[in-house]
Protein backbone atom coordinates (compact mmCIF):
# COMPACT_ATOMS: atom_id res chain seq x y z
CA UNK A 1 0.00 0.00 0.00
CA UNK A 2 1.38 3.42 -0.93
CA UNK A 3 1.63 6.01 1.78
CA UNK A 4 1.83 9.77 1.19
CA UNK A 5 1.65 13.20 2.80
CA UNK A 6 1.70 16.73 1.38
CA UNK A 7 3.69 19.82 2.42
CA UNK A 8 3.36 23.20 0.68
CA UNK A 9 5.78 26.04 0.15
CA UNK A 10 5.01 29.01 -2.08
CA UNK A 11 7.77 30.08 -4.44
CA UNK A 12 8.07 33.55 -5.96
CA UNK A 13 5.75 34.09 -8.91
CA UNK A 14 7.53 33.33 -12.18
CA UNK A 15 4.82 34.69 -14.41
CA UNK A 16 1.05 34.74 -14.56
CA UNK A 17 -0.71 32.66 -13.50
CA UNK A 18 1.05 32.21 -10.18
CA UNK A 19 2.88 28.93 -9.89
CA UNK A 20 2.77 27.25 -6.53
CA UNK A 21 5.68 24.94 -5.76
CA UNK A 22 5.18 22.07 -3.35
CA UNK A 23 6.42 18.64 -2.45
CA UNK A 24 4.22 15.58 -2.26
CA UNK A 25 5.40 12.53 -0.36
CA UNK A 26 4.42 9.24 -1.94
CA UNK A 27 5.93 5.78 -1.81
CA UNK A 28 8.71 7.13 0.36
CA UNK A 29 9.96 9.88 -1.97
CA UNK A 30 9.43 13.61 -2.18
CA UNK A 31 7.84 14.48 -5.50
CA UNK A 32 8.20 18.01 -6.76
CA UNK A 33 4.87 19.50 -7.77
CA UNK A 34 3.91 22.68 -9.61
CA UNK A 35 0.36 23.99 -9.45
CA UNK A 36 -1.31 26.87 -11.25
CA UNK A 37 -4.84 28.08 -11.76
CA UNK A 38 -8.10 26.79 -10.36
CA UNK A 39 -10.98 24.65 -11.53
CA UNK A 40 -11.20 21.00 -12.45
CA UNK A 41 -7.85 19.23 -11.88
CA UNK A 42 -5.68 18.75 -14.96
CA UNK A 43 -2.67 16.61 -14.16
CA UNK A 44 0.40 16.99 -16.33
CA UNK A 45 3.21 14.46 -16.54
CA UNK A 46 6.29 15.79 -18.28
CA UNK A 47 8.46 14.11 -20.87
CA UNK A 48 12.11 13.44 -21.30
CA UNK A 49 12.98 17.13 -21.18
CA UNK A 50 11.99 17.23 -17.54
CA UNK A 51 9.50 19.26 -15.57
CA UNK A 52 8.56 22.36 -17.54
CA UNK A 53 5.51 24.40 -18.38
CA UNK A 54 4.71 26.06 -21.70
CA UNK A 55 2.33 28.71 -22.95
CA UNK A 56 -0.18 25.91 -23.43
CA UNK A 57 -0.13 25.19 -19.71
CA UNK A 58 -0.54 28.87 -18.98
CA UNK A 59 -3.65 28.95 -21.14
CA UNK A 60 -5.10 25.74 -19.72
CA UNK A 61 -4.49 26.98 -16.17
CA UNK A 62 -6.84 29.87 -16.85
CA UNK A 63 -9.78 27.53 -16.24
CA UNK A 64 -8.21 24.42 -14.69
CA UNK A 65 -6.26 23.55 -11.61
CA UNK A 66 -3.07 22.50 -13.34
CA UNK A 67 -0.97 20.02 -11.37
CA UNK A 68 2.43 19.16 -12.82
CA UNK A 69 4.24 16.33 -11.06
CA UNK A 70 7.92 15.60 -11.48
CA UNK A 71 8.64 12.01 -12.41
CA UNK A 72 10.98 10.08 -10.10
CA UNK A 73 14.56 10.25 -11.33
CA UNK A 74 14.16 13.68 -12.92
CA UNK A 75 15.21 17.05 -11.52
CA UNK A 76 14.82 17.17 -7.75
CA UNK A 77 12.72 14.03 -7.39
CA UNK A 78 14.53 10.86 -6.35
CA UNK A 79 13.77 7.43 -7.77
CA UNK A 80 13.53 3.95 -6.28
CA UNK A 81 14.02 0.61 -7.98
CA UNK A 82 10.30 0.40 -8.72
CA UNK A 83 10.61 3.53 -10.83
CA UNK A 84 12.53 1.83 -13.61
CA UNK A 85 9.37 1.41 -15.68
CA UNK A 86 6.55 3.72 -16.74
CA UNK A 87 4.09 1.44 -14.95
CA UNK A 88 6.09 1.63 -11.73
CA UNK A 89 6.12 5.42 -11.88
CA UNK A 90 2.39 5.43 -12.61
CA UNK A 91 1.73 3.68 -9.29
CA UNK A 92 3.62 6.37 -7.39
CA UNK A 93 1.89 9.16 -9.34
CA UNK A 94 -1.47 7.66 -8.39
CA UNK A 95 -0.39 7.61 -4.74
CA UNK A 96 0.74 11.23 -4.97
CA UNK A 97 -2.54 12.36 -6.45
CA UNK A 98 -4.45 10.44 -3.78
CA UNK A 99 -2.34 12.21 -1.15
CA UNK A 100 -3.28 15.54 -2.70
CA UNK A 101 -6.94 14.61 -2.54
CA UNK A 102 -7.30 14.41 -6.29
CA UNK A 103 -9.84 11.66 -6.88
CA UNK A 104 -10.79 12.57 -10.45
CA UNK A 105 -8.85 14.49 -13.06
CA UNK A 106 -8.07 14.98 -16.70
CA UNK A 107 -4.67 13.51 -17.36
CA UNK A 108 -2.14 14.89 -19.82
CA UNK A 109 1.27 13.40 -20.52
CA UNK A 110 4.05 14.36 -22.85
CA UNK A 111 6.44 11.91 -24.51
CA UNK A 112 7.38 9.26 -21.93
CA UNK A 113 5.07 11.07 -19.51
CA UNK A 114 2.28 10.01 -21.84
CA UNK A 115 3.41 6.41 -21.38
CA UNK A 116 3.10 6.88 -17.62
CA UNK A 117 -0.32 8.44 -18.15
CA UNK A 118 -1.42 5.41 -20.17
CA UNK A 119 -0.50 3.07 -17.32
CA UNK A 120 -2.21 5.36 -14.83
CA UNK A 121 -5.42 5.16 -16.85
CA UNK A 122 -5.09 1.38 -17.18
CA UNK A 123 -4.26 0.55 -13.57
CA UNK A 124 -6.43 3.25 -11.94
CA UNK A 125 -9.47 3.39 -14.22
CA UNK A 126 -11.54 5.62 -11.94
CA UNK A 127 -8.86 8.30 -11.56
CA UNK A 128 -8.87 9.91 -15.01
CA UNK A 129 -11.90 11.33 -16.82
CA UNK A 130 -9.98 11.78 -20.02
CA UNK A 131 -6.49 11.23 -21.29
CA UNK A 132 -4.36 13.53 -23.46
CA UNK A 133 -1.23 12.03 -24.95
CA UNK A 134 1.21 14.57 -26.40
CA UNK A 135 3.81 12.91 -28.66
CA UNK A 136 3.52 9.59 -26.79
CA UNK A 137 6.52 7.30 -27.23
CA UNK A 138 4.88 4.08 -26.04
CA UNK A 139 4.53 2.80 -29.63
CA UNK A 140 7.33 3.55 -32.05
CA UNK A 141 6.77 1.71 -35.33
CA UNK A 142 10.14 2.77 -36.71
CA UNK A 143 11.85 3.15 -33.31
CA UNK A 144 12.98 6.34 -34.88
CA UNK A 145 15.41 7.85 -32.50
CA UNK A 146 15.02 7.84 -28.72
CA UNK A 147 18.55 7.87 -27.43
CA UNK A 148 19.87 7.43 -30.94
CA UNK A 149 21.86 9.70 -33.18
CA UNK A 150 19.04 12.12 -33.85
CA UNK A 151 18.44 15.13 -31.62
CA UNK A 152 16.72 14.04 -28.47
CA UNK A 153 14.74 17.19 -27.82
CA UNK A 154 13.29 18.42 -31.04
CA UNK A 155 11.60 21.74 -31.36
CA UNK A 156 11.00 22.99 -34.84
CA UNK A 157 10.80 26.57 -33.65
CA UNK A 158 12.17 28.79 -30.90
CA UNK A 159 10.28 27.77 -27.78
CA UNK A 160 8.80 29.97 -25.10
CA UNK A 161 8.64 28.41 -21.65
CA UNK A 162 6.32 29.43 -18.89
CA UNK A 163 8.69 27.67 -16.49
CA UNK A 164 11.63 25.30 -16.94
CA UNK A 165 14.17 23.70 -14.65
CA UNK A 166 17.37 23.73 -16.66
CA UNK A 167 18.94 21.12 -14.39
CA UNK A 168 16.60 18.44 -15.69
CA UNK A 169 17.15 19.07 -19.38
CA UNK A 170 17.92 15.99 -21.44
CA UNK A 171 21.35 17.25 -22.38
CA UNK A 172 22.20 15.55 -19.10
CA UNK A 173 23.42 12.02 -20.07
CA UNK A 174 21.82 10.35 -17.07
CA UNK A 175 18.46 11.84 -18.04
CA UNK A 176 18.82 10.48 -21.52
CA UNK A 177 19.53 7.02 -20.18
CA UNK A 178 16.54 7.20 -17.86
CA UNK A 179 14.28 8.44 -20.64
CA UNK A 180 15.36 5.64 -22.89
CA UNK A 181 14.60 3.07 -20.21
CA UNK A 182 11.21 4.53 -19.35
CA UNK A 183 10.14 4.65 -22.99
CA UNK A 184 10.30 0.85 -23.06
CA UNK A 185 10.52 -1.28 -26.18
CA UNK A 186 9.22 0.05 -29.54
CA UNK A 187 6.26 -2.30 -29.23
CA UNK A 188 5.11 -3.33 -25.75
CA UNK A 189 2.62 -6.18 -26.15
CA UNK A 190 1.48 -5.97 -22.52
CA UNK A 191 0.73 -2.26 -22.78
CA UNK A 192 -0.97 -2.52 -26.15
CA UNK A 193 -3.21 -5.34 -24.90
CA UNK A 194 -4.12 -3.32 -21.82
CA UNK A 195 -4.89 -0.21 -23.88
CA UNK A 196 -8.00 -1.95 -25.20
CA UNK A 197 -9.47 -1.62 -21.71
CA UNK A 198 -9.20 2.17 -21.55
CA UNK A 199 -12.82 3.31 -21.56
CA UNK A 200 -12.32 7.08 -21.28
CA UNK A 201 -11.93 9.41 -24.27
CA UNK A 202 -8.32 9.76 -25.36
CA UNK A 203 -6.78 12.53 -27.45
CA UNK A 204 -3.33 11.80 -28.90
CA UNK A 205 -1.26 14.53 -30.58
CA UNK A 206 1.63 13.99 -32.98
CA UNK A 207 3.95 16.60 -34.48
CA UNK A 208 4.40 16.41 -38.25
CA UNK A 209 8.10 17.32 -37.83
CA UNK A 210 8.76 15.11 -34.83
CA UNK A 211 12.03 13.19 -35.12
CA UNK A 212 11.32 10.92 -32.17
CA UNK A 213 8.01 9.34 -33.11
CA UNK A 214 6.39 9.70 -36.53
CA UNK A 215 2.77 10.48 -37.25
CA UNK A 216 2.45 6.90 -38.49
CA UNK A 217 2.38 5.80 -34.85
CA UNK A 218 -0.97 7.55 -34.43
CA UNK A 219 -2.92 4.79 -36.14
CA UNK A 220 -1.77 2.24 -33.56
CA UNK A 221 -3.43 4.25 -30.78
CA UNK A 222 -6.57 4.52 -32.89
CA UNK A 223 -6.61 0.79 -33.37
CA UNK A 224 -5.77 -0.07 -29.78
CA UNK A 225 -7.87 2.34 -27.71
CA UNK A 226 -11.67 2.23 -28.10
CA UNK A 227 -12.31 6.00 -27.91
CA UNK A 228 -9.11 7.46 -29.28
CA UNK A 229 -8.87 10.62 -31.36
CA UNK A 230 -5.53 11.36 -32.95
CA UNK A 231 -4.51 14.77 -34.24
CA UNK A 232 -1.51 15.76 -36.32
CA UNK A 233 -0.09 19.09 -35.22
CA UNK A 234 1.40 20.58 -38.34
CA UNK A 235 4.93 21.95 -38.26
CA UNK A 236 5.59 20.81 -34.71
CA UNK A 237 8.53 18.77 -33.45
CA UNK A 238 8.53 16.45 -30.45
CA UNK A 239 7.91 19.30 -28.02
CA UNK A 240 4.57 19.97 -29.65
CA UNK A 241 3.23 22.44 -27.11
CA UNK A 242 6.41 24.50 -27.30
CA UNK A 243 6.32 24.65 -31.09
CA UNK A 244 2.60 25.25 -31.56
CA UNK A 245 1.20 26.39 -28.20
CA UNK A 246 -1.93 27.98 -29.65
CA UNK A 247 -2.71 24.94 -31.77
CA UNK A 248 -2.34 22.57 -28.82
CA UNK A 249 -4.32 24.84 -26.52
CA UNK A 250 -7.15 25.01 -29.03
CA UNK A 251 -7.59 21.29 -29.58
CA UNK A 252 -6.87 20.28 -25.98
CA UNK A 253 -9.12 23.02 -24.64
CA UNK A 254 -11.97 21.85 -26.84
CA UNK A 255 -11.38 18.24 -25.87
CA UNK A 256 -11.34 19.07 -22.16
CA UNK A 257 -14.56 21.01 -22.50
CA UNK A 258 -16.53 18.68 -24.73
CA UNK A 259 -14.93 15.24 -24.50
CA UNK A 260 -15.49 13.04 -27.51
CA UNK A 261 -17.86 15.54 -29.13
CA UNK A 262 -14.99 18.02 -29.43
CA UNK A 263 -14.99 17.18 -33.13
CA UNK A 264 -18.12 19.33 -33.50
CA UNK A 265 -17.19 22.93 -34.34
CA UNK A 266 -19.02 25.34 -32.06
CA UNK A 267 -17.24 28.50 -33.25
CA UNK A 268 -19.16 31.01 -35.30
CA UNK A 269 -17.95 31.56 -38.85
CA UNK A 270 -20.09 34.65 -39.28
CA UNK A 271 -17.95 37.47 -40.64
CA UNK A 272 -20.12 40.56 -40.57
CA UNK A 273 -23.03 40.24 -38.12
Amino acid at each position, binding site marked *: MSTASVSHTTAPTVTTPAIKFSTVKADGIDIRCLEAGSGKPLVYLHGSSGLRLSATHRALASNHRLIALELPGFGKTAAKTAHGTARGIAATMAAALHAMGVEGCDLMGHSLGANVALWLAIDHPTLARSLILVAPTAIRPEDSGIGGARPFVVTAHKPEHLWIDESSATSNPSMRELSQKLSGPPRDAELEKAMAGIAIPVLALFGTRCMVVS*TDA*AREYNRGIPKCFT*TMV*YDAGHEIDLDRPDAVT*SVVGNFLEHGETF*IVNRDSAMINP
Partner: protein
Amino acid sequence: MKASLFCTTRYEGQSKKGVWPVPADSYDAEIAQKSYQRTLSQIRLGDDVGFDYVTVAEHHFAPFSMSPNPLIFAGALTQVVKKAKIALLGPDLPILNPIRVAEEIAMLDNLSGGRVIAGLMRGSPNEYVTYNINPGESRERFQEGVELIKKAWTEPQPFGWQGRYYDYRTVSIWPRPVQKPHPQIFISVATPESGEFAARLRLSAGFAFTTLQIASKAAAYYREQANAYGWTPQPEDVIYRLSFHVAPTDEQAMEELVSSGMQTSVGLSMTNKALESAVAGSGYYGRDIETQRARLQSRGQIEERIHNGQLLAGSPETVLKQITRIRDTIGAGMLDLSLGIATMGAITNRSIEMFGTDVLPRMHEL
Protein backbone atom coordinates in the same frame (compact mmCIF):
# COMPACT_ATOMS: atom_id res chain seq x y z
CA MET B 1 9.72 11.46 -73.47
CA LYS B 2 5.98 11.76 -73.06
CA ALA B 3 3.50 14.42 -74.07
CA SER B 4 0.31 15.76 -72.56
CA LEU B 5 -2.26 17.68 -74.58
CA PHE B 6 -3.56 20.77 -72.81
CA CYS B 7 -6.73 22.14 -74.39
CA THR B 8 -8.12 25.08 -72.47
CA THR B 9 -11.80 25.78 -72.84
CA ARG B 10 -11.38 29.17 -74.44
CA TYR B 11 -14.65 31.06 -74.88
CA GLU B 12 -15.03 31.50 -78.61
CA GLY B 13 -17.24 34.58 -78.52
CA GLN B 14 -16.41 38.23 -77.95
CA SER B 15 -15.17 39.40 -74.57
CA LYS B 16 -13.49 42.47 -73.17
CA LYS B 17 -9.71 42.48 -73.45
CA GLY B 18 -7.10 43.81 -71.06
CA VAL B 19 -9.07 43.49 -67.84
CA TRP B 20 -9.47 41.00 -65.03
CA PRO B 21 -12.01 40.01 -63.90
CA VAL B 22 -13.62 39.99 -67.31
CA PRO B 23 -17.22 41.26 -67.35
CA ALA B 24 -19.80 38.86 -68.74
CA ASP B 25 -22.06 41.36 -70.57
CA SER B 26 -21.46 39.72 -73.91
CA TYR B 27 -21.60 36.16 -72.59
CA ASP B 28 -23.58 33.80 -74.81
CA ALA B 29 -24.54 30.46 -73.29
CA GLU B 30 -24.69 28.69 -76.64
CA ILE B 31 -21.20 29.85 -77.57
CA ALA B 32 -19.92 28.74 -74.18
CA GLN B 33 -21.43 25.28 -74.55
CA LYS B 34 -20.01 25.02 -78.04
CA SER B 35 -16.60 25.95 -76.61
CA TYR B 36 -16.79 23.05 -74.17
CA GLN B 37 -17.75 20.64 -76.95
CA ARG B 38 -14.88 21.90 -79.09
CA THR B 39 -12.46 21.28 -76.24
CA LEU B 40 -13.83 17.79 -75.66
CA SER B 41 -13.48 16.94 -79.35
CA GLN B 42 -9.87 18.18 -79.36
CA ILE B 43 -9.11 16.04 -76.33
CA ARG B 44 -10.74 12.98 -77.97
CA LEU B 45 -8.56 13.60 -81.00
CA GLY B 46 -5.44 13.87 -78.85
CA ASP B 47 -6.33 10.59 -77.18
CA ASP B 48 -6.89 8.92 -80.56
CA VAL B 49 -3.55 10.05 -81.98
CA GLY B 50 -1.56 8.83 -79.00
CA PHE B 51 -0.95 11.65 -76.54
CA ASP B 52 0.16 10.05 -73.27
CA TYR B 53 -1.80 12.48 -71.10
CA VAL B 54 -4.45 15.15 -71.37
CA THR B 55 -4.23 18.16 -69.05
CA VAL B 56 -6.71 20.20 -67.06
CA ALA B 57 -5.95 23.39 -65.11
CA GLU B 58 -7.75 25.97 -62.99
CA HIS B 59 -8.53 29.59 -63.83
CA HIS B 60 -11.22 31.98 -62.71
CA PHE B 61 -13.29 34.92 -63.88
CA ALA B 62 -11.93 34.98 -67.44
CA PRO B 63 -12.83 33.57 -70.86
CA PHE B 64 -9.39 32.34 -71.87
CA SER B 65 -9.85 29.14 -69.85
CA MET B 66 -13.35 28.41 -68.56
CA SER B 67 -12.19 25.87 -66.03
CA PRO B 68 -12.80 27.15 -62.52
CA ASN B 69 -12.89 23.56 -61.30
CA PRO B 70 -10.53 21.41 -63.38
CA LEU B 71 -11.48 18.36 -61.37
CA ILE B 72 -15.06 18.54 -62.62
CA PHE B 73 -13.69 18.70 -66.14
CA ALA B 74 -11.40 15.77 -65.39
CA GLY B 75 -14.44 13.84 -64.16
CA ALA B 76 -15.96 14.24 -67.59
CA LEU B 77 -12.68 13.23 -69.22
CA THR B 78 -12.60 9.94 -67.32
CA GLN B 79 -15.58 8.94 -69.44
CA VAL B 80 -14.27 10.44 -72.69
CA VAL B 81 -10.59 9.55 -72.80
CA LYS B 82 -9.86 5.88 -73.45
CA LYS B 83 -6.10 5.51 -73.42
CA ALA B 84 -4.45 8.69 -72.23
CA LYS B 85 -3.84 9.42 -68.58
CA ILE B 86 -5.16 12.61 -67.04
CA ALA B 87 -2.74 15.28 -65.82
CA LEU B 88 -4.42 17.38 -63.16
CA LEU B 89 -2.24 20.51 -63.42
CA GLY B 90 -4.04 21.37 -61.35
CA PRO B 91 -6.23 22.69 -58.60
CA ASP B 92 -5.06 26.02 -57.10
CA LEU B 93 -4.57 24.52 -53.69
CA PRO B 94 -4.23 27.58 -51.43
CA ILE B 95 -7.63 28.93 -52.41
CA LEU B 96 -9.38 25.59 -51.93
CA ASN B 97 -10.33 23.17 -49.18
CA PRO B 98 -7.43 20.69 -49.24
CA ILE B 99 -9.47 17.79 -47.91
CA ARG B 100 -12.01 18.35 -50.68
CA VAL B 101 -9.14 18.34 -53.18
CA ALA B 102 -7.82 15.06 -51.72
CA GLU B 103 -11.28 13.53 -51.97
CA GLU B 104 -11.89 14.70 -55.52
CA ILE B 105 -8.53 13.49 -56.82
CA ALA B 106 -9.09 10.14 -55.13
CA MET B 107 -12.48 9.96 -56.89
CA LEU B 108 -10.82 10.73 -60.20
CA ASP B 109 -8.19 8.08 -59.62
CA ASN B 110 -11.01 5.57 -59.19
CA LEU B 111 -13.09 6.78 -62.10
CA SER B 112 -10.04 6.73 -64.39
CA GLY B 113 -8.69 3.37 -63.25
CA GLY B 114 -5.62 4.87 -61.59
CA ARG B 115 -4.74 7.13 -64.53
CA VAL B 116 -4.28 10.52 -62.88
CA ILE B 117 -1.23 12.48 -61.85
CA ALA B 118 -1.80 15.18 -59.27
CA GLY B 119 -0.37 18.59 -59.95
CA LEU B 120 -1.01 20.83 -56.96
CA MET B 121 -0.56 24.47 -57.92
CA ARG B 122 -0.55 27.92 -56.38
CA GLY B 123 -2.25 29.46 -59.41
CA SER B 124 -1.59 32.84 -60.92
CA PRO B 125 -1.64 36.00 -58.77
CA ASN B 126 -5.16 37.06 -59.70
CA GLU B 127 -6.66 33.80 -58.42
CA TYR B 128 -6.17 35.01 -54.84
CA VAL B 129 -8.69 37.75 -55.43
CA THR B 130 -11.19 35.16 -56.64
CA TYR B 131 -11.93 33.62 -53.26
CA ASN B 132 -10.65 36.51 -51.17
CA ILE B 133 -7.47 34.79 -49.95
CA ASN B 134 -4.40 36.81 -48.94
CA PRO B 135 -1.75 36.07 -51.60
CA GLY B 136 0.95 36.80 -49.05
CA GLU B 137 -0.06 33.58 -47.26
CA SER B 138 -0.21 31.56 -50.45
CA ARG B 139 3.02 29.63 -50.00
CA GLU B 140 2.41 28.67 -46.38
CA ARG B 141 -1.15 27.59 -47.19
CA PHE B 142 0.13 25.63 -50.15
CA GLN B 143 2.83 23.77 -48.28
CA GLU B 144 0.55 22.88 -45.41
CA GLY B 145 -2.14 21.79 -47.87
CA VAL B 146 0.24 19.46 -49.70
CA GLU B 147 1.31 17.77 -46.49
CA LEU B 148 -2.30 17.43 -45.39
CA ILE B 149 -3.36 15.89 -48.70
CA LYS B 150 -0.52 13.36 -48.59
CA LYS B 151 -1.61 12.37 -45.09
CA ALA B 152 -5.26 12.15 -46.09
CA TRP B 153 -4.37 9.80 -48.95
CA THR B 154 -2.13 7.53 -46.93
CA GLU B 155 -3.43 7.42 -43.35
CA PRO B 156 -5.77 4.45 -42.89
CA GLN B 157 -7.16 5.61 -39.53
CA PRO B 158 -9.20 8.76 -38.89
CA PHE B 159 -7.04 11.68 -37.83
CA GLY B 160 -7.38 15.33 -36.92
CA TRP B 161 -5.22 18.12 -38.32
CA GLN B 162 -4.22 21.12 -36.25
CA GLY B 163 -2.56 23.32 -38.82
CA ARG B 164 -1.64 26.94 -39.17
CA TYR B 165 -4.25 27.52 -41.87
CA TYR B 166 -6.38 24.37 -41.74
CA ASP B 167 -8.11 22.68 -38.83
CA TYR B 168 -9.94 19.40 -39.19
CA ARG B 169 -11.06 17.47 -36.17
CA THR B 170 -11.43 14.17 -38.00
CA VAL B 171 -10.47 13.08 -41.51
CA SER B 172 -10.91 9.69 -43.14
CA ILE B 173 -11.43 10.04 -46.86
CA TRP B 174 -13.39 7.63 -49.04
CA PRO B 175 -12.66 6.60 -51.71
CA ARG B 176 -8.95 6.00 -51.35
CA PRO B 177 -6.66 6.57 -54.35
CA VAL B 178 -6.15 3.58 -56.63
CA GLN B 179 -2.43 4.30 -57.04
CA LYS B 180 -0.27 3.45 -54.03
CA PRO B 181 0.83 5.12 -51.95
CA HIS B 182 -0.91 7.91 -53.90
CA PRO B 183 -0.95 9.52 -57.35
CA GLN B 184 2.32 11.14 -58.34
CA ILE B 185 2.37 14.72 -57.04
CA PHE B 186 3.78 17.54 -59.14
CA ILE B 187 4.26 21.08 -57.95
CA SER B 188 5.64 24.12 -59.71
CA VAL B 189 9.27 24.60 -58.70
CA ALA B 190 9.71 28.00 -60.31
CA THR B 191 10.88 29.61 -57.08
CA PRO B 192 13.78 28.60 -54.83
CA GLU B 193 11.34 28.10 -51.96
CA SER B 194 9.24 25.64 -53.95
CA GLY B 195 12.34 23.79 -55.17
CA GLU B 196 13.40 23.30 -51.57
CA PHE B 197 9.92 22.17 -50.53
CA ALA B 198 9.59 19.71 -53.43
CA ALA B 199 12.99 18.27 -52.63
CA ARG B 200 12.15 17.82 -48.94
CA LEU B 201 8.85 16.06 -49.66
CA ARG B 202 10.19 14.15 -52.70
CA LEU B 203 7.68 15.72 -55.05
CA SER B 204 7.90 15.86 -58.82
CA ALA B 205 8.47 19.17 -60.56
CA GLY B 206 6.59 21.26 -63.09
CA PHE B 207 7.52 24.34 -65.08
CA ALA B 208 4.98 26.60 -66.75
CA PHE B 209 4.76 30.22 -67.91
CA THR B 210 8.49 30.49 -67.91
CA THR B 211 11.45 30.52 -70.25
CA LEU B 212 13.99 27.81 -70.89
CA GLN B 213 16.67 30.04 -69.43
CA ILE B 214 14.82 30.70 -66.17
CA ALA B 215 13.56 27.13 -65.86
CA SER B 216 16.99 25.58 -66.40
CA LYS B 217 18.30 27.42 -63.34
CA ALA B 218 15.27 26.42 -61.29
CA ALA B 219 15.58 22.80 -62.43
CA ALA B 220 19.23 22.71 -61.45
CA TYR B 221 18.39 24.12 -58.04
CA TYR B 222 15.60 21.56 -57.55
CA ARG B 223 18.00 18.72 -58.39
CA GLU B 224 20.67 20.14 -56.11
CA GLN B 225 18.20 20.33 -53.25
CA ALA B 226 16.87 16.82 -53.94
CA ASN B 227 20.42 15.48 -53.83
CA ALA B 228 20.87 17.17 -50.46
CA TYR B 229 17.80 15.25 -49.26
CA GLY B 230 19.28 12.02 -50.60
CA TRP B 231 17.36 11.39 -53.79
CA THR B 232 17.72 12.04 -57.50
CA PRO B 233 14.77 13.23 -59.60
CA GLN B 234 14.28 11.18 -62.77
CA PRO B 235 13.10 12.54 -66.14
CA GLU B 236 9.55 11.38 -65.33
CA ASP B 237 9.69 13.71 -62.31
CA VAL B 238 9.89 16.80 -64.51
CA ILE B 239 7.13 18.31 -66.66
CA TYR B 240 7.66 21.38 -68.80
CA ARG B 241 4.71 23.29 -70.25
CA LEU B 242 4.73 25.27 -73.50
CA SER B 243 2.60 25.82 -76.59
CA PHE B 244 2.90 23.97 -79.86
CA HIS B 245 1.83 24.28 -83.45
CA VAL B 246 2.85 21.80 -86.12
CA ALA B 247 2.36 22.14 -89.89
CA PRO B 248 3.81 20.35 -92.92
CA THR B 249 6.48 23.05 -93.27
CA ASP B 250 8.10 25.63 -91.00
CA GLU B 251 6.82 28.43 -93.21
CA GLN B 252 3.23 27.25 -93.03
CA ALA B 253 3.38 26.88 -89.26
CA MET B 254 4.66 30.46 -88.91
CA GLU B 255 2.07 31.86 -91.29
CA GLU B 256 -0.73 30.16 -89.40
CA LEU B 257 0.55 31.40 -86.05
CA VAL B 258 0.78 34.97 -87.33
CA SER B 259 -2.70 34.86 -88.83
CA SER B 260 -4.09 33.48 -85.55
CA GLY B 261 -3.05 36.68 -83.78
CA MET B 262 -0.67 34.97 -81.36
CA GLN B 263 1.79 37.85 -81.46
CA THR B 264 -0.60 40.10 -79.62
CA SER B 265 -1.11 37.73 -76.69
CA VAL B 266 0.05 38.91 -73.29
CA GLY B 267 1.22 37.11 -70.20
CA LEU B 268 -1.02 35.15 -67.94
CA SER B 269 -2.35 37.56 -65.40
CA MET B 270 -0.68 40.83 -66.17
CA THR B 271 -3.72 42.48 -67.68
CA ASN B 272 -4.46 44.22 -64.40
CA LYS B 273 -1.21 45.95 -63.48
CA ALA B 274 -2.45 47.43 -60.22
CA LEU B 275 -3.62 44.01 -59.07
CA GLU B 276 -0.34 42.37 -60.01
CA SER B 277 1.65 45.03 -58.17
CA ALA B 278 -0.46 44.63 -55.05
CA VAL B 279 0.00 40.86 -55.14
CA ALA B 280 3.74 41.30 -55.62
CA GLY B 281 3.79 43.60 -52.60
CA SER B 282 2.15 40.94 -50.45
CA GLY B 283 5.19 38.68 -50.63
CA TYR B 284 3.48 36.24 -52.97
CA TYR B 285 6.51 35.77 -55.21
CA GLY B 286 8.98 34.96 -52.45
CA ARG B 287 12.63 35.91 -52.28
CA ASP B 288 13.28 35.76 -56.04
CA ILE B 289 10.64 38.35 -56.84
CA GLU B 290 12.15 40.00 -59.93
CA THR B 291 12.65 36.70 -61.78
CA GLN B 292 9.17 35.54 -60.86
CA ARG B 293 7.51 38.75 -62.06
CA ALA B 294 9.56 38.73 -65.23
CA ARG B 295 8.58 35.21 -66.21
CA LEU B 296 4.89 36.09 -66.10
CA GLN B 297 5.21 39.25 -68.18
CA SER B 298 4.08 39.70 -71.77
CA ARG B 299 5.40 37.22 -74.27
CA GLY B 300 7.58 38.24 -77.17
CA GLN B 301 7.28 37.64 -80.89
CA ILE B 302 6.97 34.11 -82.22
CA GLU B 303 10.66 33.61 -82.96
CA GLU B 304 11.58 34.89 -79.52
CA ARG B 305 9.11 32.50 -77.91
CA ILE B 306 10.62 29.58 -79.74
CA HIS B 307 14.07 30.63 -78.62
CA ASN B 308 12.85 31.02 -75.03
CA GLY B 309 11.30 27.58 -74.96
CA GLN B 310 7.77 28.93 -74.77
CA LEU B 311 6.61 27.58 -78.12
CA LEU B 312 7.24 24.58 -80.34
CA ALA B 313 6.51 25.61 -83.93
CA GLY B 314 7.32 24.31 -87.35
CA SER B 315 7.46 21.06 -89.24
CA PRO B 316 7.61 17.77 -87.29
CA GLU B 317 11.35 17.65 -87.91
CA THR B 318 11.89 21.17 -86.59
CA VAL B 319 9.65 20.58 -83.58
CA LEU B 320 11.57 17.44 -82.68
CA LYS B 321 14.79 19.45 -82.60
CA GLN B 322 13.12 22.01 -80.34
CA ILE B 323 11.92 19.23 -78.04
CA THR B 324 15.40 17.73 -77.87
CA ARG B 325 16.80 21.08 -76.85
CA ILE B 326 14.28 21.36 -74.01
CA ARG B 327 15.01 17.83 -72.85
CA ASP B 328 18.72 18.51 -72.83
CA THR B 329 18.33 21.83 -71.01
CA ILE B 330 15.71 20.96 -68.39
CA GLY B 331 15.92 17.18 -68.16
CA ALA B 332 12.15 17.01 -68.62
CA GLY B 333 10.56 13.63 -69.22
CA MET B 334 7.21 15.09 -70.21
CA LEU B 335 6.03 18.13 -72.12
CA ASP B 336 2.66 19.63 -71.33
CA LEU B 337 1.56 21.07 -74.66
CA SER B 338 -1.07 23.76 -74.93
CA LEU B 339 -2.50 24.64 -78.30
CA GLY B 340 -0.60 27.40 -80.08
CA ILE B 341 -3.73 27.92 -82.11
CA ALA B 342 -6.71 26.86 -80.02
CA THR B 343 -9.80 27.67 -82.01
CA MET B 344 -9.09 27.41 -85.72
CA GLY B 345 -10.95 24.19 -86.41
CA ALA B 346 -9.23 22.17 -89.10
CA ILE B 347 -5.88 23.93 -88.63
CA THR B 348 -5.89 23.23 -84.91
CA ASN B 349 -6.92 19.61 -85.45
CA ARG B 350 -4.27 19.07 -88.10
CA SER B 351 -1.62 20.30 -85.67
CA ILE B 352 -2.82 17.83 -83.02
CA GLU B 353 -2.93 14.97 -85.52
CA MET B 354 0.45 15.76 -87.01
CA PHE B 355 2.04 15.96 -83.60
CA GLY B 356 0.53 12.58 -82.73
CA THR B 357 1.52 10.80 -85.90
CA ASP B 358 4.78 12.49 -86.92
CA VAL B 359 6.32 13.74 -83.66
CA LEU B 360 5.12 11.60 -80.76
CA PRO B 361 6.52 8.21 -81.87
CA ARG B 362 9.98 9.72 -82.22
CA MET B 363 9.57 11.76 -79.08
CA HIS B 364 8.83 8.56 -77.16
CA GLU B 365 12.27 7.32 -78.14
CA LEU B 366 14.07 10.36 -76.74
